[in-house]
């Protein structure tokens, strides 16, 4: 069996003394597409940052993160990272192709001299993500979907083997969501890239996910969609009754809220968790 490109073992992270992740363990095989699902505040970003080795102030962690079977180094060419939307002023003099080029050598000192090879690499990657048309537009002037494409090209230029994407679908309209998911899946297949992508909704990722890592209350379950997205499994994870409904080909994870069982006797209702 091949060595997993990412192995997380017994990872726990606390932020300012508050436990955010508790003993998370999972592996990602080369070329595997994993959806990291959980509601806001479930710890998705914390997990991605821990994998990257980025530490926030007042955070403590235990456990191990292995990349290709080895502990990670400070700078990891193995990992490509797409953070949540970059907020830039339209005035900032940075074209899409400049931001992509920084994916090649942005960590190096000095400034880049014009090079035909560098230009060709950037152009090729921009066209691979469908960004050729706005290569010379300022990043701050691009739409959310266009920015995601630019960030994707930036991350891919370092030739990573694992791609981490933090909520790339947040704030996109429905059409862009479908396009961006299809693009990520296509690029991942072409480059034989493993993908870990966080989202608070399952459905857009359904067609492309090999495995799912479902996060709630600092704990996680990991497996195929059939193994994880089940009422009994998610009830165990959440610690209270959760139903999985199939409606018009979509999956809804719902929980009963209120109804007089809790301390605040709110009117009974149903909350869609993902």
């Amino acid at each position, binding site marked *: 069996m091949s060595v997993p490109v990412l192995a997380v073992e017994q990872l726990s992270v606390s932020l300012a003394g508050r436990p955010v992740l508790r003993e998370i363990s999972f592996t990602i095989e080369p070329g595997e597409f994993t959806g990291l699902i959980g509601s806001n505040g479930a710890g998705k970003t914390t997990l991605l940052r821990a994998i*990257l080795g*980025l530490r926030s102030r007042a955070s403590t962690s235990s456990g191990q993160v292995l990349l290709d079977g080895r502990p990670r180094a*400070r*700078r*990891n060419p193995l*990992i490509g*990272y797409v*953070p*949540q939307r*970059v907020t*830039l002023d339209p*005035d*900032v*003099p*940075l*074209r899409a192709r*400049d*931001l992509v080029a*920084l*994916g090649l*050598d*942005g*960590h*190096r*000192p*000095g*400034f*880049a001299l014009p090079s035909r090879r560098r230009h060709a690499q950037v152009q090729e990657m921009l066209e691979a993500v469908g960004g050729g*048309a706005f290569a*010379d537009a*300022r*990043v701050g002037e691009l739409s959310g979907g266009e920015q995601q494409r630019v*960030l994707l090209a*930036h991350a891919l230029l*370092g030739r990573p083997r694992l791609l981490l994407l933090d909520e790339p679908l947040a704030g996109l309209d429905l059409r862009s969501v479908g396009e961006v998911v299809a693009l990520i899946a296509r690029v991942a297949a072409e480059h034989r890239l493993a993908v870990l992508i966080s989202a608070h909704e399952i459905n857009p990722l359904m067609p492309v996910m090999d495995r799912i890592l479902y996060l709630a209350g600092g704990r996680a379950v990991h497996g195929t969609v059939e193994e994880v997205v089940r009422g009994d499994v998610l009830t165990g994870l959440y610690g209270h009754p959760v139903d999985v409904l199939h409606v018009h080909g979509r999956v809804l994870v719902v929980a009963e809220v209120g109804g007089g069982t809790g301390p605040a006797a709110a009117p009974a209702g149903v909350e869609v968790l993902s």
Partner: protein
Amino acid sequence: MTATGALVASGFFSSPAVGTALVIGAAVALVSGPLGVFTVIRGQSFAGEALGDIGMSGGSGAYLAGVGPLWGFLVAGVAAAALMELLGVQRRRGRDLATGVVLGSGLGLAALFLYLNSTEHGADVTMTVLFGSLFTVDRSTLPLVLVLALLVLLALGAIARPLLLASTSPELAAARGVPVALVGAAYLVALSLSVALCAITIGSILSTALLVGPAAASLRLARRPGRAMAVAAALGVAATWLGVLLAYDSYDWPPHHRGWPVSFFVVALVLVEYMLCGLIGGRRRAPHPAPDTAPPAALGG
């Protein structure tokens, strides 16, 4: 009288004060323009302004101690930068607060020093410290200005790429292994040195105009970072040189034929540049319809 004669008053090129002013002005503009581009990108204009204002305490303190004002601007600037860094100027949330706290204490010190200068030494240096006086800068300051300018330019060149990435997205930079905090601190030191250089040119209070003005103007024209830095440097040099020229000419102007302050002309020219660049940039960007939102072709009937 020739055309040049009408524009350039006689003696302009032979005056040693003018020569010094032109060289210092150019050196300072060449540094502050490119650095200012990062100041604007990082949204740290307020920090730059504060460093300039705090420079007042250094400049006035230097006169009290009997040393050159540039030394005062330098010491105050670097000390203020260090204090701001310590109080959290790099964190987006605490930035304005840290800057404001340091700014307040710096201004208080300046008030004391300016007062002591006038009461103890009988010399009112307020105008010179606050608004500058490029023609009276001592020629012996020139080597220090040139060395500092070169130093800041070299440092900026060395950290340009990681600084650009970190200024765009600290997350992206950190993920690529850029020591974001260290790069930010290095930039802040470079900023404080550059502000000190601006202060000796056009005064501590006006220093931001030369730091942020040409950079802001260049951002309305240039699309890419390298070009923005080059344009900012060129605009800065143009404003200082033309400012020196007009100030020299103004010795023939009313009301007293004593000359208007150089700083006034430089700052006014920077404003003109900013507005001109806005006009040119706006005109260039206006006709830009997205290809797939073109109006539907008119249908017959």
